[in-house]
């Protein structure tokens, strides 16, 4: 999607290894989010950021950490990957201030498989 890219698009990793997913935006939006999407659960918020170095937990944050050292990058790290973290991960961005008037812009997703 224009203005937001996720990398990698696909990844297979082994149980117990750390994994980092990257979200990069060129829109200079203040807010960034990480969601996971699983069949039967829809999208669930993992972590979000409301500014550089300002992050907070979502509803399914256990086993995940995030960092935001620059406005444009939001990293999601699985500290020790487990099979239950096999999922499709989406990053989203929204504008500050006008966030209540506009929706989120989503990346194309990262399909992560933990074997």
């Amino acid at each position, binding site marked *: *999607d224009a203005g937001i890219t996720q990398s990698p698009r696909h990844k297979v990793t082994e149980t117990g290894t750390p994994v980092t997913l990257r979200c990069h935006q060129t829109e200079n939006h203040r807010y960034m*989010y990480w*969601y996971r999407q699983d069949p*039967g*659960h*829809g*999208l*669930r*918020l993992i972590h*979000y950021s*409301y500014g550089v170095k300002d992050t*907070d937990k*979502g*509803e399914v944050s256990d086993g995940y950490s995030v960092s935001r050292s620059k406005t444009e990058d939001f990293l999601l790290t699985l500290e020790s990957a487990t099979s239950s973290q096999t999922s499709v991960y*989406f990053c*989203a961005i929204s504008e*500050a201030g006008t*966030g*209540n*008037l*506009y*929706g*989120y*812009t*989503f*990346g*194309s*997703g990262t399909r992560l498989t933990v074997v």
Partner: protein
Amino acid sequence: SQQGEEDPQALSIQEGENATMNCSYKTSINNLQWYRQNSGRGLVHLILIRSNEREKHSGRLRVTLDTSKKSSSLLITASRAADTASYFCATRGGGANSKLTFGKGITLSVRP
């Protein structure tokens, strides 16, 4: 926990027919949004309706909001095969740092 619950879970219609999808939610909201997701892609924002609005239109889309019933509906008129996708409602509470909470989605199939 999901705030929005869509209904039905799946819908199959013929091209040219109208598609109506419903969403119910539990707590007070600032706005409600609908998104579309094509297979293998990210979500795309379709329309946003604020809590003080009752109806909104965008092209072939019409969304209504009834805050007394905590429900919304999305109507797609004159559906096309290209409308085949999953549709999600999402609610946003008050506060500058409030986040969107998504439902589980509705799978719409439009038969040519």
